[in-house]
């Protein structure tokens, strides 16, 4: 092989490097490492945080390209709208002076490592004042650590898993209610249908979850519910899949063999579309079909056709049918005026996360990070989210907590809220009428 022979060290000098000397060098470096002989933090200047700055810079990353690009773009709409509204009357009021807000948003390309590196750069180099989180649990889980390390208020509308908030972090706040609630709310609707005799008893459950904290919470929610309801439900398959999977045929073969009545999946938008396509093309049909929070998106309808998404059940963190009054109306109207389309829950969450942060800055009257953190911790404001209030209870580690709404896609293209009854805008259908026999 005439692969490179240049060694960097002439071989003639082999004998000069005596083993004993080498041992000394090695021993020395080992001692240095184990003794932790490293200078401690030299400079710890936070700048003069009490002075009123000329602008407030909020750092953020979102998946603007990559597998979650569509959702990332929607969160951006929410962030932009909230900040535009804030700046419309001069900005945030800091002790009598209006200070404009600037969003320094970078594209993390749906990549965990990049979400972390960009956050590090925004926080330690660009010295942004505050941080709005990225989208999807896996990325938020990685990124929130950077915020906590650097003690900067971090508000996100994209991380739902309880594990993010169970680490005792002091600087991380989330507007998404736990996924366990999501699973539980869906099961409550199913339970009603079962009680009404529309679904078999016991119902065979196929539980398919994304192998992330998000999916694990969903799984726990379903398991807790089925355990609490004894013999009414029987979990016949319990399998995980990788986030951003391309081929779900193996898992679907397993599901098909188990002959479930309820196909309970937790997936993100791209995986939902891919899996649903393969579900349809293998001619499967289950009495109830859900992908967790996904199903009612316009993108799914485009990709799968109306028939492809009919009767899919979903539970979401917000829906524009929640009420055409007050804050909700103002949000939907201004959203439509700016973007010309209806908002989905993604935009609503982005909007609420940004609004919670901006409100807290105004309440603190300062860009001092710990003052704003304290305000976030004690926040309790009127909100467009279900239940009408938004707070970050310390008992949940800074994760908001409110009920979900269950929707079902109908063949006419609508997705009415079918549960809970007090906000329902339509009647749910079970079992799935698409299935013959």
């Amino acid at each position, binding site marked *: 092989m005439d692969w490179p022979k240049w060694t960097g060290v002439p071989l003639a000098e082999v004998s000069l490097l005596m083993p004993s000397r080498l041992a000394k060098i090695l021993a020395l470096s080992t001692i240095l490492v184990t003794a932790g002989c490293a200078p401690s933090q030299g400079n710890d200047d936070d700048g003069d945080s009490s002075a009123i700055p000329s602008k407030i810079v909020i750092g953020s990353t979102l998946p603007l390209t990559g597998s979650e690009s569509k959702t990332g773009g929607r969160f951006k709409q929410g962030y932009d709208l909230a900040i535009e509204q804030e700046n419309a009357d001069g900005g945030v009021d800091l002790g009598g002076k209006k200070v404009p807000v600037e969003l320094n948003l970078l594209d993390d390309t749906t990549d965990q490592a990049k979400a972390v590196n960009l956050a590090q750069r925004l926080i330690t180099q660009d010295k942004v004042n505050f941080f709005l989180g990225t989208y999807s649990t896996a990325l938020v889980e990685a990124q929130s650590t950077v915020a906590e390390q650097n003690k900067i208020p971090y508000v996100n509308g994209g991380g739902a898993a309880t594990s993010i908030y169970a680490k005792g972090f002091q600087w991380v706040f989330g507007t998404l209610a736990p996924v366990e609630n999501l699973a539980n709310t869906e099961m409550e609707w199913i339970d009603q249908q079962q009680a009404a005799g529309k679904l078999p008893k016991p119902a065979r459950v196929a539980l398919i979850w994304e192998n992330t904290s998000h999916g694990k919470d969903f799984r726990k929610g379903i398991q807790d519910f089925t355990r609490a309801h004894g013999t009414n439900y029987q979990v016949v398959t319990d399998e995980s899949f990788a986030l951003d999977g391309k*081929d779900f045929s193996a898992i679907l073969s397993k599901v098909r063999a188990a002959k479930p009545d309820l196909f309970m999946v937790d997936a993100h938008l791209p995986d939902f579309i891919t899996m649903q396509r393969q579900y349809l093309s293998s001619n499967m049909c289950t009495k109830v079909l859900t992908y967790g929070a996904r199903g009612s998106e316009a993108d799914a309808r485009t990709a799968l056709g109306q028939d492809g998404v009919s009767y899919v059940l979903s539970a979401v963190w917000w829906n524009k049918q929640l009420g055409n009054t007050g804050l909700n109306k103002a949000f939907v109207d201004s959203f439509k005026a700016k973007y010309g389309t209806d908002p989905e829950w993604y935009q609503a969450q982005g909007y609420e996360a940004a609004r919670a942060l901006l409100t807290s800055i105004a309440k603190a009257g300062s860009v001092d990070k710990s003052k704003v953190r304290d305000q976030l911790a004690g926040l309790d404001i009127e909100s467009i989210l279900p239940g009408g209030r938004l707070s970050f209870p310390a008992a949940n580690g800074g994760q908001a907590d409110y009920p979900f709404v269950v929707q079902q896609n109908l063949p006419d293209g609508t997705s009415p809220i079918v549960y809970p009854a007090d906000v329902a805008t339509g009647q749910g259908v079970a079992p799935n009428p698409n299935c013959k026999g």
Partner: protein
Amino acid sequence: MREVFTLAVSAVLLAGFYAAMAYGLGLIYGVLRIVNLAHGGIIMAAAYLTWQLFERFGVDPYIAIPVALVVFFALGAGIYLGLVRFLPRGPAGAVQSLLLLFGVWLIIRNVAYLLFTGNEQAIHTSYATRSVTVFGSSFSVTRILVFAIAVVALLLLHLLLTRTYLGKAIRAVAQNPDSCTLAGIDVERVRIFTFGLGTALAGLAGVLASTLFAFNPSFGAAELLKSFVIIVLGGLGSIVGIALGACVLAFAEVFSIYVVPPYLTSAVGFVLLVVVLVLRPGGLFGQRVLR
């Protein structure tokens, strides 16, 4: 029993696609002794080409096959003439070509990122979600079409290699390039053609893959690996070898759901690869040449 039947037919359908996917890699290795690490990149690029033709001009993915064959034949010949030609032959060249073609893969990936961003794409034909029921088991229409096309393509290739002068020249070069020169075969032209043909086959696999899976610029890595597995399993030998290798992999993957969690299905191939390489040191390919 019904279940086993369904899985077996699925495995056969999958094997057809796998065979088409692996053949390009095997052909190039057999004739040039070069592992084309850009194989996965070509598959990805072909998926994008198909998607563009479908989205922009409404060309059905299967109609796009001739276009893809021509485009990727030209690209492959270009890569050979522009890059691979300059590498030394023999073991040194083998390692260098690995890294060189790996560089080419990175470039192809980057071009795809620049043109189409990293967003996930899929081709939504009207029949994408249709299925056919045979003996009470349902099979996706696209998978059946992909299988049929793959089989036809492999048969045509077999005829090309066994019945034409060019094919005989390719096999001769694979066996002994030196005596070919003596026999008056233009070895260099055969190599150009082979690299082009191997790349075109990867392109075909890309077209077929685009109708089965969602893809993004990093698509193709798993396909490249599976192609290796197949070649290692079946030996480079012949259509039969490739088909056998593809069947072994497809059946192992499909039936693995009885043994391992579906999550680990794709690991089955990789483990198989390592085990076979270790049990048959020196690899299975290269021992039997095209016959």
